[in-house]
């Protein structure tokens, strides 16, 4: 009886080693998380490589979709940073596609009866992954900011036009806000993914419980089922939206590095 042994809503986030590997003393086992990262990269790479196979002047559906993604991110970068921000375009594009694919893949239902550890897994529902990506973005901002502006990058913390007696307070606030950027960036994505999947799981558990309760309440399981359909639709939106938010915020932070002087 598949499904009736309802797992807890947190079990879907469990990391299960599939192939034990280690680098010195560090455990780098191929886990289900790693597997889904590989699947995400394989899927997106395969998609884009297939899309550019024929560089048609009049694009087919695949190439059109890829071009829409390209233009979407390119407009995002140009809009937030300007033309000189286009040097970060490959990074923002990769970031957006990676997060989007990972988010969307996580919404596929697990094939019933899949062996332990091979359930559908959302890599972006793990704080360490989103935090690493956030730190990567912020690191690029800091490194490029100092490379481009030298110590002038520190003007970021002292907006022009602030009275001198207010400056220490403002600098402190700006500094704290700068430090909180990677946190808000990573927690936003992680928490959205976590919450969405927990809700889906809870609804699913309701269905199983009600169904198991027999004829009296069994028919009620239609409600959580409709709930799952609705939440899945919502999660599709969230999957896209969070990838977009992550990418656009990265662009906005990069804009600080490119134009440190004026704001």
């Amino acid at each position, binding site marked *: 009886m598949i499904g009736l042994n309802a797992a807890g809503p*947190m079990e879907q986030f469990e990391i299960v080693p599939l192939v034990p590997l280690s680098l010195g003393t560090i455990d*780098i086992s191929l886990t289900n998380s*790693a597997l889904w990262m590989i699947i995400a990269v394989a899927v997106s790479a395969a998609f884009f490589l297939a899309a*550019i196979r024929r560089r048609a002047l009049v694009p087919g559906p695949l190439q059109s979709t890829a071009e829409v993604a390209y233009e979407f991110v390119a407009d995002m970068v140009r809009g937030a940073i300007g033309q000189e921000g286009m040097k970060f375009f490959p990074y923002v594009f990769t970031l957006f596609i990676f997060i989007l694919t990972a988010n969307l893949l996580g919404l596929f239902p697990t094939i019933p009866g899949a062996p332990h550890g091979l359930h559908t897994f959302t890599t972006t529902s793990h704080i360490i992954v989103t935090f690493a990506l956030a730190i990567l973005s912020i690191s690029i901002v800091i490194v490029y900011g100092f490379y481009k502006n030298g110590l002038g990058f520190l003007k970021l913390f002292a907006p022009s036009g602030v009275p001198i007696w207010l400056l220490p307070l403002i600098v402190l606030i700006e500094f704290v806000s700068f430090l909180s950027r990677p946190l808000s960036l990573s927690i936003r994505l992680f928490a959205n993914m976590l919450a969405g999947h927990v809700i889906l799981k809870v609804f699913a558990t309701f269905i199983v419980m009600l169904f198991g309760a027999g004829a009296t309440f069994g028919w009620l399981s239609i409600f959580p089922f409709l709930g799952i359909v609705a939440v899945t639709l919502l999660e599709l939106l969230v999957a896209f939206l969070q990838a977009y938010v992550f990418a656009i915020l990265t662009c906005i932070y990069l804009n600080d590095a490119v134009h440190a002087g004026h704001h």
Partner: protein
Amino acid sequence: MSLVAILVSAAAPAAAPVVEGAGEAGPGLPQMDASTYPSQLFWLAVTFGFLYWIMTSFVLPRLGGVIEERRDRIADDFDQAAEFKRKAEEAEAAYEAALADAKARARAIAAETRESLNEELAELQREADARVAASLAAAEARIAAMKEDAAAKVREAAAEVTRAVVEALIDETPTPEAVDSALNGVAKAA
């Protein structure tokens, strides 16, 4: 089993791990299990790096290239269309000019023809006038000659008559001088 009981028992596993996770590390939130971090970070770096490499080496240059190419092509096509339009306008202008030219030439030819016809007409008119005038003059001359002739004959007859009358009356032949002067006197009186 009441509905409430079912819902509570369904929700229980949802709440439990969070509560446990909030306490110490262990079977709580899997995201907080730091022992999985190195592996996740390692594979994230590998997979993200690989995707970045694929994107920068293959996908983005070609996608950007084809979009650029299309933009250029469309711009070229627009230029070409403008060129064609310009040519069409030129052709139209040339046509208009040719038309105007032809019209002017037609007008000129018409005017020329009219003028030459008028000249010819005038010539004929002059000729006819001359002929008429000539025959008029000849006729007048003839009339004058005939008049003179007739007058002479009348005078001769008058002289004859006068002579005859004088001969009959006085039986004397008057001299021609006397007859002449007598006739002249009568002619003056008449």
